[in-house]
């Protein structure tokens, strides 16, 4: 492949050798260091190929070996250049292309963050922009070490980071700090009390002394496991009570939906486009909008092999909202209340084992209502510190 590229760049000719002593021609060429390739014999001579620069100095060799040379084909870049030598536009275009390429490679066109898990990417991008690294930053003016120090100071969760400039791409490698494990405090004396009313079903005591048994009814704030333990000598020792107390509890939730309400809807949408080229933006849509419109901006940049090119389109989605009212019928209201109830149960009762649920629908002049009564098994143990004087 490399040989073909070299031959293309230097240019070569296919020619025919006709004469009495073609072998002598080969020998003379090899002795004079003229590279001859693909010599193919024919009845009255042979075909061969040769670099353009070598072909210009074989006239003497051909004369000495009494052969005639006839060019069959020409290949390579020198012939293409010769063919288009009068087309000045192509030359000018090539020079402009080279200049643009050389200028654009002095700027950063892609900023990529790797290794982020818990830190907010948008916050990080904002701070990076404030620190002087954004699309179109001039590479020579950018101090990566200063930005690294600034980010390390501002984000406590960053354990290690490095900014690598690779061509026109800035790669930010971040390694977050390992989170400290949660250490349970088993030294501070405390009791375990009930966090809500219920009927005890199971009790597991790891530390302290249980004051209730299974089947006991408890009220909110009642002592379940005591941190004051009597030792063998009759003295009192205070420990951090630990354990789990499961109880059957009942909780009621109230959901409501108004019979008539107002909502916002989009009445008119206008798209405005702007062309982004390098650091400039050129408007493509000449439409003026009033201040009542709410706009949403979306930017699409062209990319090639994950490298952003400074050419793209910015679309501004301008929406005009109008307020409309609606009246909810009974069936729709029930569906909406059920959805609200399911969502609440899904997110708020994750640690509860639900046993039964009772639903009660009612309605007034203004709203539909749903009362849900849940009976469930849950851990009601809650720590309460003991103040020892």
């Amino acid at each position, binding site marked *: 492949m490399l040989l073909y590229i070299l031959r293309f760049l230097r240019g070569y000719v296919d020619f025919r050798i006709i004469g009495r002593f*073609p*072998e002598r021609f080969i020998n003379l060429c090899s002795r004079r260091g003229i590279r001859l390739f693909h010599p193919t014999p024919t009845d009255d001579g042979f075909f061969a190929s040769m670099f353009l620069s070598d072909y210009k100095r074989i006239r003497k060799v051909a004369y000495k070996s009494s052969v005639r040379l006839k060019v069959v084909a020409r290949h390579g870049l020198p012939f293409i250049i010769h063919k288009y030598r009068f087309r000045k536009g192509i030359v000018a275009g090539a020079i402009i292309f080279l200049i643009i390429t050389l200028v654009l490679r002095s700027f950063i066109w892609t900023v990529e963050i790797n290794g982020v898990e818990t830190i907010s990417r948008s916050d990080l991008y904002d701070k990076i922009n404030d620190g002087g690294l954004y699309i179109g930053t001039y590479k020579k003016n950018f101090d990566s070490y200063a930005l690294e120090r600034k980010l390390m100071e501002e984000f406590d969760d960053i354990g290690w980071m490095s900014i690598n400039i690779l061509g026109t791409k800035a790669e930010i490698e971040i390694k977050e700090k390992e989170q400290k494990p949660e250490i349970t405090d088993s030294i501070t004396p405390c009791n375990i009390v009930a966090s809500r009313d219920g009927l005890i079903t199971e009790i597991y005591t790891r530390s302290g002394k249980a004051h209730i048994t299974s089947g006991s009814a408890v009220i909110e704030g009642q002592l379940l496991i005591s941190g004051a333990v009597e030792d063998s000598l009759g003295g009192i020792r205070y420990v951090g009570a630990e354990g789990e107390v499961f109880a059957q509890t009942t909780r009621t939730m109230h959901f409501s939906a108004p019979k008539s309400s107002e909502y916002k809807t989009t009445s008119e949408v206008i798209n405005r486009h702007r062309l982004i080229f390098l650091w400039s933006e050129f408007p493509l849509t000449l439409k003026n909008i009033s201040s009542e419109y709410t706009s949403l901006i979306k930017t699409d940049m062209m990319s090639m092999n994950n490298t952003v090119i400074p050419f793209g389109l910015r679309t501004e989605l301008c929406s005009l909202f109008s307020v409309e009212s609606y009246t909810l019928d009974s069936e729709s209201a029930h569906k909406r209340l059920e959805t609200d109830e399911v969502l609440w149960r899904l997110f708020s009762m994750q640690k509860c084992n639900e046993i039964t649920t009772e639903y009660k629908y009612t309605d007034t002049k203004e709203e539909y209502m749903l009362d849900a009564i849940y009976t469930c098994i849950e851990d009601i143990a809650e720590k309460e510190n003991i103040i020892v004087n």
Partner: protein
Amino acid sequence: MVFYKKHSYSENSGEDTPKKSIKDIFTDKPHIEIIDNKTVNIEGSKGVMEYSNKVIRVNLGEYSVVFSGRSLALRCISPTVLVIEGFILNIEFCM
């Protein structure tokens, strides 16, 4: 004029092959390497005397060597090295 040492033969091993020395390898005598019947590498060539599809005659100084066969072609040509490719059916040494 180049003088060569007489080949010494191994007595203990009982092999008849002569021991090769550096001089044997880097001599100014022509080297011909034949790979299968399709490629021949010739070092120490003095030029091509005849060249066609069926016959290639190479001058090696004191003698010449004729390769005959079909679809023969010179792959590489330099002042001292030649590479011949094709289906070689016969090799003949001529003084």
